[in-house]
């Protein structure tokens, strides 16, 4: 198993922490993991993105040009990364604020209305976990238990009371994710 993922959106959407939870969870399952953020000028005022690789074997380059999965949270990122998904790969995006939708026909495209769903919850900060839930529904490469453990590991103790809320968000994401084509 080798899953190469790009998660991209605006700073503040929880892009980096979503990647971190994935990486922690992968580690719980004894996978090799890498988490490579964009940092610096790119992050300030532009898109924030993180490359996460989960693999059964040693990971070579933590920075990639093409991906098995792109999780896209804004228009700029969609414009940039749609063409970077490997043929047959997966593109998951939130339609909120998207006016130019993906056009490729050689990849699987899914939508998760995470921003709309988060608005129904106690806090919209659950947004990224709804997206992550959608991804895990499509690619159940990590046990749900390990995701819970990953959450515990990556969240500071003072936020542990929010874990049930996050799990609720993950489950909502799993329910609302839907295919655009195929």
């Amino acid at each position, binding site marked *: 198993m080798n899953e190469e993922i790009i998660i991209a959106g605006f700073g503040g959407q929880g892009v980096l922490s979503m990647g971190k939870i994935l990486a922690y969870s992968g580690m719980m399952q004894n996978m090799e*993991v890498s988490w*490579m953020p964009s*940092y610096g000028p790119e992050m300030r005022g532009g898109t924030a993105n993180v490359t996460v690789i989960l693999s059964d074997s040693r990971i*070579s*380059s933590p920075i990639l040009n093409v991906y098995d999965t792109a999780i896209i949270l804004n228009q700029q990122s969609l414009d940039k990364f749609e063409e970077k998904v490997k043929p047959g790969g997966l593109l998951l995006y939130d339609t909120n604020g998207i006016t130019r939708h993906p056009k490729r026909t050689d990849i699987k495209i899914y939508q998760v209305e995470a921003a709309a769903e988060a608005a129904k919850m106690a806090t919209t900060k659950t947004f990224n976990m709804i997206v992550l839930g959608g991804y895990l529904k499509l690619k159940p490469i990590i046990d749900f238990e390990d995701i819970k453990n990953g959450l515990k590991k990556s969240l500071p103790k003072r936020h542990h009371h929010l874990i049930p809320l996050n799990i609720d968000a993950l489950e909502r994401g799993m329910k609302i994710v839907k295919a655009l084509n195929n």
Partner: protein
Amino acid sequence: MGELRLMKGNEAIAEAAIRAGCDAYFGYPITPQSEIIEYLAAEETHKRTGMVLLQAESEIAAINMVYGAASTGKKVMTSSSSPGISLKQEGISYIAGAELPCLIVNVVRGGPGLGTIQPSQADYFQATKGGGHGDYRLIVLAPASVQEMSDFVKLAFDLAFKYRNPAMILSDGMIGQMMEKVELFDPVPRNTEFDQSWVITGKTADRERNIITSLHLESASMEKHNQELQKKYIQMQEQEVRIEKIQCEDAEFLFVAYGSSARICQKAVDLARAEGIKTGLLRPQTLFPFPTKEIEKMAGQVKGILTVELSMGQMVEDVRLAVNGKIKVEFYGRAGGMIPTPEEVLKAMKQKIIGG
């Protein structure tokens, strides 16, 4: 098995320093390595191991604190990024001249000048060929993973004390900022086995005064000191070279790359092999001592070598010296924080070596 954690490269360096029994860290923050001092501060090292953590008023102050503390035989370190390391060069030259052990971490960013905060490997010359003035060498280790960021801290201290010579970890913003799984080594008590006859901790009645200095006003004495230093460097070259070879057994074309570039080349090797092109990667883990003999040996096996660096071409000069004209050696690199993709690197191999 040691404790497993998911950490940034910079955090791994800090945690490893605590575990390696480091007595003191003196530094001044600079991106992309500020997580080192941040992590040490958050860990409250004074409570955990008694390790001193001091944010100096400048890089120059920090390196001179290292000079002073190292004189007492303590295990000490500093860290910075390119412009900050330039500021430290006078002190580094003095420490090398005075033959003191210490660890200097350079998480390299793009230059020259203030440059950019993005990853770069453009400080290779500075790290391996001097940096400061005079005929001296640093032991230079080049980690290519978060695991090695941790492991090389211990190794660097061991080598620094073995040779009474400053050791440098030459990393970059990519390895510093990325997170990977790391198996931490068990904490070790500070190594007190080494010969302490030279340390200045207060003269006792039963011995002569110890003097730590890099000043030798008499030419004959200065030359003798230089010759003694050279002996040490030659011994390092004979005993301390470390490399990793990836898919080299049947390779016809070879990448030579260190640190983050090596990770990119490792993927390029896989991509090439998927196309039926037999490539391999030789990754120096020590940049000084440089793996001259190992590269020379590979030159007898492969048809051509592509050296890949995040610079405009620095290590390639040492690769060419090692190969000595036997086969073609070409260079591919990006600068200023631009990072080549594995596909780009493979394309360069095809154009410059295989097809060229």
